[in-house]
């Protein structure tokens, strides 16, 4: 067993077309994010919310997050401490929502032989998944600079706060 702290995350593998109703089931929307997150992905994997831990990485196939514009889909994953989602492709609105909420989402050219439960670390700075043992890191597609900046600030709201504060400062400096 690796005691390497930097590889404290585990892979949770999912298939294609995971939709927003799976991530944030409509019937639990009333109860607030904690209650909603408790049912995140239960339709495909009943034990997900109970077993996922901070630092874990959700890895999926194509079109992750398809469906509605409800951003609780991304919020639920963030609430559970998921370090990020890596998929072959994302549905556009989910992708934007995730970045806006500060949840890293990255596409990978291939998922190689990543396995369920494998020890990993999502390395955002270098855009890759580090893997335990001798396995080479899995490269991820680079994020555009504007999205990197958004994520670095923790999402759209903190990003805008920073920008507004800078604008106010400029005005006062004049």
């Amino acid at each position, binding site marked *: 067993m690796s005691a390497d702290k930097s590889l404290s995350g585990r892979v949770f593998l999912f298939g294609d*077309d995971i*939709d927003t*109703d799976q991530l944030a*089931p*409509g*019937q639990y929307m*009333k109860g607030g994010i904690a209650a909603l997150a408790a049912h995140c992905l239960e*339709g495909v994997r009943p034990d997900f919310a109970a077993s996922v831990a901070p630092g874990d990485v959700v890895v999926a196939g*194509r*079109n992750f997050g*398809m*469906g*509605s*514009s*409800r*951003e609780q889909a*991304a919020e639920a994953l963030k609430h559970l401490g998921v370090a990020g989602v890596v998929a072959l*492709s*994302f*549905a*556009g*609105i989910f*992708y*934007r*929502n995730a970045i*806006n*909420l500060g949840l890293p989402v990255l596409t990978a050219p291939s998922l190689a032989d990543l396995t369920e439960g494998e020890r990993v670390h999502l390395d955002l700075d270098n855009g890759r998944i580090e893997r335990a043992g001798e396995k080479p890191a899995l490269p991820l597609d680079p994020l*555009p*600079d*504007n999205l990197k900046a958004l994520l670095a600030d923790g*999402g*759209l*709201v903190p990003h*805008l*706060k920073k920008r*507004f504060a800078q604008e106010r400062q400029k005005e006062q400096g004049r």
Partner: protein
Amino acid sequence: MTASPTTLAQKIVARAAGRPSVAPGEIVTARVDLAMIHDSGGPRRVEPILQDLGVGLFDANKVVLISDHFVPGDTDEGARILELTRQWAAQRKVAFHDGEGICHVVLPERGHLAPGMLVVGGDSHSPTGGAFGAYMFGVGATEMAGVLATGEIWLKVPETILIEWRGRLSDGVTAKDIMLALCGRLGMDGGKYQAVEYAGEAIAALSMQERMTLSNMAAELGGQAGLIAPDGVTAAFLQDAGSDPAGWGDWQSLRTDPGAKLLEHHIFEAGDLAPQVAAPHSPANSGPVGDAPATPVDVAYLGACTGAKYQDLANAARILKGRRVASGVELLVAPASRRDQDRAARDGIMAVLEEAGAKLLPNACGICAGYGTARLGEDVTCISSTARNFKGRMGAASSKVWLGSPLTVAASAVAGRITDPRLMLAEHAGGAA
């Protein structure tokens, strides 16, 4: 030097970004001409963020609020959300359409849209605005709050996937059938979050409301937008809705130039298309209705932005005239807007539906959104004119939703099982008194 050929999407995005031209893949910041929000993703979610940011609306005249998801407010929660929505509209002094119908239908119907606009909507079916030659797309609540605060949004300039339908649709085949067929053939990520554009003789021949169905369901294809180049049909509809062409700029140049670089170009023969149904639980599970098992249905639902506009009700009435819904089947009709319902009433269409046994629901999202009291019960099988049949969306997880055109929904209601509407159209034409 002549400018190189560009797509409709590029032209709109370039103007909104204040640039002479833009290239696909570039990231730009665009000014938003209009922002649309509804009661579910709107005030209750954006106001706390605006408060947190300490700012107001970028321009109250460019914000339209429409209540539809929680209308008629038949639960405590729904009533509370509607109340909050109404207060916010008054406080923030934005255009507000309350209980007048589903946002994607009300927005153009009330003259808010124009060709060439860049519009952001707080709902995933926002691509509907693309039917009018506007680049309209959906965002979540946080991003909407950012738009309301700044009037700006970032965009990755889209590639264009051109979907051309040649020839003419045959009688009994509609825009909804086109979209179900496309979901099946291209898949729900076939749009690759790029600009889907519909073109060709069959598209040009469609009414404005049929075109809206195409653009609406660009969402099911996973496109960011679902565009149709504006033409005389567009202009007539918008003028009728009170939009002034003087404000549309050079709208006739809003089209994809011949030779513009496309990501994909698909060509289909409209005449070959049969009415389609999509089996539970995905719009991509589609195929000709004739190939589907003659599944018995409990509920037939004519509703939603994509399936209960005036034209959709008129189509259903073609089948239902002089017929009755099969015993044991509930036909529920939620006209997409009050204006469409009033027009359908004037034209005798509502009377036909009611005589056939239809039960009328409010002009709202209703069962499609799965909110409120109107939901599908355990094990109910439903044929629905809506856009999505994901598991559990419209009610119990054990309910099964098939998707079809309003014609197919009506025909299936009469037969009590999933049925090809052309059989009944032929019977009518065959001339019973």
